[in-house]
């Protein structure tokens, strides 16, 4: 198992089978979110929050378009089964403790978006020596960067004053979506020999970077 994409191809690119699997996953998840946003979006925007909803929908379409074009796709016979598994996970769920059906749908939608935009960190899988002009790598960085901004609308809504009466239910719904998305994401990565928690174990340079005095050990080697 590795912490990052790789080993890189001779031309420095990320292996096509890893690109394909990760991009398929991202298209499934972001596609599901885009569909659910489209369902929630009325034909005419009448409320302020619907402006943000429209913006979210457009950003998701942008992400899908970018991934589709920046990936070096190769045949992956396991994808039909995986797609079915992933799509099942993204289906809307009612939120326990919330009786208003529309509110329940919106909470789950925001919880799914929050989990997707916070748990999934495709750029954190890029090895440090990846080519800085590689389109797939740059696409992954763009997806992760945009996710941070997109997540803010979900945070505002989920932590907002109108949901204070059902805050425990909201927190539980978000935790559940986080656990679900993390499980599916980690499972997908395991299929391409990647263990994402490995990112926590890269320490020697950090340790020496903060050490006092003259560089020693790993710091000296790094130099």
């Amino acid at each position, binding site marked *: 198992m590795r912490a990052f994409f790789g080993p890189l191809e001779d031309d420095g690119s990320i292996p096509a089978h890893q690109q394909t699997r990760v991009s398929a996953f991202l298209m499934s998840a972001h596609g599901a979110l885009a569909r659910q946003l489209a369902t929630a979006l009325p034909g005419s925007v009448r409320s302020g929050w619907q402006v943000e909803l429209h913006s979210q929908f457009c950003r998701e379409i942008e992400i899908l378009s970018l991934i589709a074009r920046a990936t070096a796709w190769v045949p992956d016979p396991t994808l039909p089964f995986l797609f079915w598994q992933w799509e099942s996970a993204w289906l809307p769920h009612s939120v326990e403790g919330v009786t208003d059906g529309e509110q329940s749908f919106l909470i789950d939608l925001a919880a799914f978006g929050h*989990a997707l935009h*916070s748990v999934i960190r495709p750029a954190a899988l890029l090895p440090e020596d990846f080519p800085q002009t590689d389109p797939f790598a740059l696409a992954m960085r763009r997806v992760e960067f945009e996710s941070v901004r997109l997540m*803010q609308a979900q945070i505002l809504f989920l932590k907002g004053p109108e949901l204070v009466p059902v805050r425990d239910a909201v*927190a539980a719904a978000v*935790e559940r979506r986080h656990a679900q998305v993390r499980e599916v994401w980690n499972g997908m990565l395991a299929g391409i020999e990647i263990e994402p928690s490995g990112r926590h174990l890269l320490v020697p340079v950090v340790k020496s*970077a903060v*050490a006092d005095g003259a560089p020693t050990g790993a710091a000296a080697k790094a130099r």
Partner: protein
Amino acid sequence: MPWLACNSRRIHYELAGPADGPACVLINGLTQYVRLWHPLRDALVARGLQVASFDMLGQGQSDKPSLFIHQDDQVAVLGELIATLGERPIFVAGISFGAVIALRYAIAHGHTIAGVVPMSGFAEIPAQLYMLGTALRTALILGGTTFLQDLLFPMNFSGEWLESKRDLIDIARHRGWLVNDVYALQNLMESFLDFEPLTPQLSSIRTPTMILTGEFDFLTPRPLQETLRVHIPDSALVIVQRAYHAFTLEKPELTAHLLTRFAEDVMGGRWRGKGTIWLAPEEVGGDFVPFPAGFDHMRAIPVRKDAREPAPRPETAAL
């Protein structure tokens, strides 16, 4: 890799050093994680202390609650960790955010520890700190962890240190970006949105307290440390010379010396806080020096406390 369970959350922690002597628990600041303590930890272990450090909820490898992180939960985690250390002198030292958690713990459970060391800490969030915190949060939201770190590096360290580590800063920044998750950092920062000042409760801290502050710390400047000194009965304020906010990272050997001296003084019955003010030695092994009598420790220039009259105007003033 040791893990602690607390209220259904999983906490990552590390233990190092002898298990039969005094122990020191280290508490992270924002964006930090256990492994960043290693230089200080190793220096403390070399001086005979056992060191326990942990990733707070929302940091490092510990669980990251998705929406809300309450500071009471951090205190509960600290309590669980202290309980695992058994009956022996235990000192708690936290930096910045970690100092707040250390103070909260000392207020609620001070009888379980031998001493507490808030470093670059605070008990209130006055306008300046609030606006800095808000700006840092906005930086996180708009630019992600990397932008936040770009701001924190020059806020936390001296120019000399940054210059000497210039070739490693990018790597350290990348590691920080990898380990930290934006939503979790944001939750940690937002746990201060409804922060109630701890000042009214500080007088209940009866445990010996050494307040460490960097001479040049402009993130949590001297007035914030002064609040701690004035209200915690058995406290002393120690100014770490030529130091900025994150002196534990920039000067780990010196910090270890200060912490060890504090522990030795407390255990030897020599500690007398009494609201005194000290200058930390500049070199490891040096002595603490009382802040010069008659001068105002709240000023950046040597102003005598009893000489507040305006300075005489130069006869040939050019301005």
